[in-house]
């Protein structure tokens, strides 16, 4: 009971309680007073009526009471003199009494000052009118903005455009006042809605999966490290957004592998489609800890030629719930989708499903040829209502299955801020559902939007289990990168369930640590088990993984030698390799995995290509940056300045400016500290 805040019901109850009945005596007194006032009010009117009836009296009365020639005009009255003794006053200054030479100056002075007053008045009037106009325009603009907060999903955009037109009319029209009234009526109660809608965004409710950074492992205890590849880039975009706002991102938002894989490292492409990857490995000294080495693993996917690009059957599943009603959400979604439309072939099909309070189909599967129809459907969308995400996903799978293209790529592209608050909302239930659908050959990609209520964990779960990728779209240029520049890798998978296993050689490696991929770790036995799901690689995509190792004999290790376990005898015959890399993948249509094996040698025999070395160095700069952002225990003596130095030196051609932007981000992180 105690300490509950007062609510509206209490207010109503208090205000609505019946007041005690009015005292009868007082009431009578009041009535009498009122009646007296009433009759007093009637009397003068009666008198007036009588004067109207007698016009002769009226003229006389009007003459008597005339106040026309009073005050300023007093001197015009038909009186002989202003004083009563008929003499002219001597000492009061008047025009006639002035010396004659002063008269012209006086007259011109009066004329000039009256002109000045007139000019001043005109100017003031002008100012007032203009300020009115500005104020009005600002108010109308505000109203028309808040007008785009409708509550119905499929409300036609026509109404909004009508009100916009009206705004223009008002801003130009000189007869403003007449137009203001209908405008004000056209925007009912905008303020309250605005406040309610905006409130959640002020809270910080972004949700990320908790994870602990990979720790150092002794090769003697566990020589094998297994993980699934991850080509998502969401983490980097999110971190960028936070840093651009001048804030450091929360530590769980920084996934090192996604930061590294954001960049388009120019690893040499594989020659044919048969083995869709080439793997590159190199060993370099760790820039953040003397004595340690970094094993850099780069995997480059096969790039499809334009003629090889299969048909696509896409279903856009768009979140149009109330939470999407922000400039960085639904409008950006629409722009992104129309960008993607441009990269598709005319024969590809697109369907659009939306969900808010309930899910619905906005556009049945339509060929990309009918672009105007698709765009019209997109542009009609408006945000409002709750979020029945699970229902939406079920509907999207239904649409994709209905139009299933056995030869092409079937993909659902989900655009959301990740907030599912209606229906089966648990991450796990949804995961099960998506997993079951995955078997049918439908991919699910997730595009994340917005901030303040961003449900990263949910997005990751969906994309990972739906055989898809998760990207975070913070700006239109990021949409351009993901959906246009890298459209082939976003849309067309060349391999699925790609797993990497590295076995370290205890003769040469004392301890090792995988940088990033914490959320992608697999069990050792999962590697050869084709039932276990792992990440996909799109056409032309590249994946980078970095291990930090402490070679045997180096003093930079963190683990103490075991007292009881027998010391490894160095086997000279087997000490030319640090590790052995195994990579398993399935072609998109196959269920059996293929294996690629590469040894990682201690000493490199071939001379390293300078361009390749540059890409390796840049990825290490990114890894170092991610570790610093996470406050990693293993960041050594690396600093933001060293990151900038290393990145600047290895920027390369940087056609799209992503690497320059990276350097800027490091600077911002340094300031935000």
């Amino acid at each position, binding site marked *: 009971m*105690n300490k509950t805040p007062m609510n509206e019901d209490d207010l109503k109850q208090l*205000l609505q309680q019946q*007041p*005690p009945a009015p005292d009868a005596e007082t*009431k009578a007194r009041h009535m009498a007073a*009122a009646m007296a*006032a*009433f009759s007093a009010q009637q009397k003068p*009117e009666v008198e007036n009526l009588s004067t109207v009836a007698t016009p002769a009296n009226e003229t006389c009365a009007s003459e008597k009471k005339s106040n026309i020639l009073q005050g300023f005009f007093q001197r015009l009255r038909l009186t002989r003199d202003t004083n009563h003794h008929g003499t002219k006053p001597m000492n009061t200054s008047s025009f006639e009494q002035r010396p004659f030479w002063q008269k012209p100056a006086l007259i011109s002075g009066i004329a000039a000052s009256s002109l000045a007053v007139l000019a001043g008045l005109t100017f003031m009037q002008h100012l007032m009118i203009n300020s009115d106009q500005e104020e009005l325009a600002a108010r109308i603009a505000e109203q028309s903005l808040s007008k785009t907060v409708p509550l119905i999903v499929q409300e036609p955009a026509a109404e909004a455009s009508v009100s916009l037109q009206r705004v223009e009319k008002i801003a130009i029209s000189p007869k403003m006042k007449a137009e203001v009234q209908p405008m004000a009526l056209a925007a009912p109660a905008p303020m309250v809605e605005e406040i309610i809608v905006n409130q959640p965004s002020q809270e910080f409710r972004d949700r990320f999966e908790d994870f602990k950074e990979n720790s150092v492992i002794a090769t003697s205890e566990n020589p094998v490290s297994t993980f699934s590849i991850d080509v998502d880039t969401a983490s980097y975009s999110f971190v960028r957004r936070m840093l651009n706002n001048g804030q450091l991102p929360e530590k769980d938002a920084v996934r090192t592998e996604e930061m590294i894989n954001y960049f388009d490292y120019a690893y040499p492409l594989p020659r044919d489609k048969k083995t869709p990857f080439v793997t590159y490995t190199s060993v370099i000294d760790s820039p953040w800890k003397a004595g340690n080495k970094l094993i850099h693993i780069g995997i480059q996917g096969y790039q499809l030629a334009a003629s090889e690009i299969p048909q696509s059957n896409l279903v856009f599943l768009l979140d149009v719930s109330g939470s999407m009603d922000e400039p960085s959400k639904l409008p950006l979604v629409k722009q992104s989708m129309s960008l993607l439309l441009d990269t598709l072939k005319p024969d590809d099909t697109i369907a659009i499903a939306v969900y808010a309070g309930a899910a619905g189909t906005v556009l049945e599967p339509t060929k990309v040829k009918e672009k105007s129809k698709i765009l019209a459907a997109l542009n009609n969308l408006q945000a409002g209502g709750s979020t029945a995400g699970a229902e939406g996903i079920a509907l999207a799978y239904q649409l994709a299955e209905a139009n299933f293209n056995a030869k092409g790529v079937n993909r659902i592209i989900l655009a959301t801020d990740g907030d599912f608050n209606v229906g089966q909302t648990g991450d796990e239930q949804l995961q099960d559902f998506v997993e079951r659908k995955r078997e049918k050959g439908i991919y699910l990609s997730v595009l994340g939007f917005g901030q303040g209520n961003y449900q990263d964990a949910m997005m990751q779960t969906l994309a990972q289990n739906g055989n898809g990728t998760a990207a975070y779209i913070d700006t239109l240029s990021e949409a351009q990168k993901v959906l246009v520049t890298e459209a082939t890798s976003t849309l067309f998978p060349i391999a699925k369930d790609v797993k990497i296993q590295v076995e370290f050689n205890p003769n040469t490696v004392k301890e090792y640590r995988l940088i990033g991929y914490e959320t992608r770790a697999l069990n050792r036995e999962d590697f050869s088990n084709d039932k276990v799901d792992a990440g996909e690689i799109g056409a032309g995509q590249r994946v980078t993984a970095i291990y930090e190792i402490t070679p045997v004999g180096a003093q930079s290790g963190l683990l103490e030698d075991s007292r009881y376990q027998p010391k490894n005898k160095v086997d000279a015959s087997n000490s030319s390799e640090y590790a052995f890399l195994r990579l398993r993948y399935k072609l998109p249509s196959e269920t059996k995995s293929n294996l690629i094996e590469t040894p990682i040698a201690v000493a490199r025999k071939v001379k390293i290509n300078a361009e390749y070395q540059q890409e390796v160095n840049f990825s290490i700069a990114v890894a170092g940056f991610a570790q610093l952002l996470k406050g990693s225990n293993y960041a050594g003596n690396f600093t933001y300045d060293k990151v900038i130095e290393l990145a600047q030196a290895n920027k390369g051609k940087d056609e799209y400016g992503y690497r320059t932007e990276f350097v800027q981000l490091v600077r911002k992180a340094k300031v935000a500290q």
Partner: protein
Amino acid sequence: MNAADQSELIRTAQGGDSQAFAQLLANQYDSIYRFAYRWCGNPSDAEDITQLACIKLAQTIAQFRFEAAFSSWLYRLVINCAKDWYKSQNRHQHDNIDHWIEPERAPDQTAENSIYLQQLLGLLDQMAEGFKEAALLVHGEGLSHAEAAAILQVKESTVSWRLHEIRKQLQLLQQQPDGSWELSL
């Protein structure tokens, strides 16, 4: 009494018929008093305001033009009277304490509620001009936002916004163990 009868009565009163006016006032007296009571929260002030309002009604009934509902016009009149009365009271440096409660005129339960009502009204008075009217019309009299807006001659959105502001202010009020409300910051 239906609307047609009422406007007939008003017209007759405007014509100077004191019988009709007496009838009209008798019909409206209770609602005037009720609203005045809700405005100030105690009977003696309510009576003063009611008297002012009755006299004002007598003086201005001729100016009613049938452009709005009579009830709206009357609400506006009572609100103006109440405001005028408060101004005159403040000029006299009236101490709030001595017209808070008059237990001998009201049963205990009402007296207690009256205290809470006083507190609430005090809070509303502290807010900007127009908030109290909006709360009383919508929550007290049960009018819609649009009706209240018509009476206060503001936009409907303004009424909605005022009520929203009040709601936010109320969140700051905490109910104490003894049942009274206190501002917690």
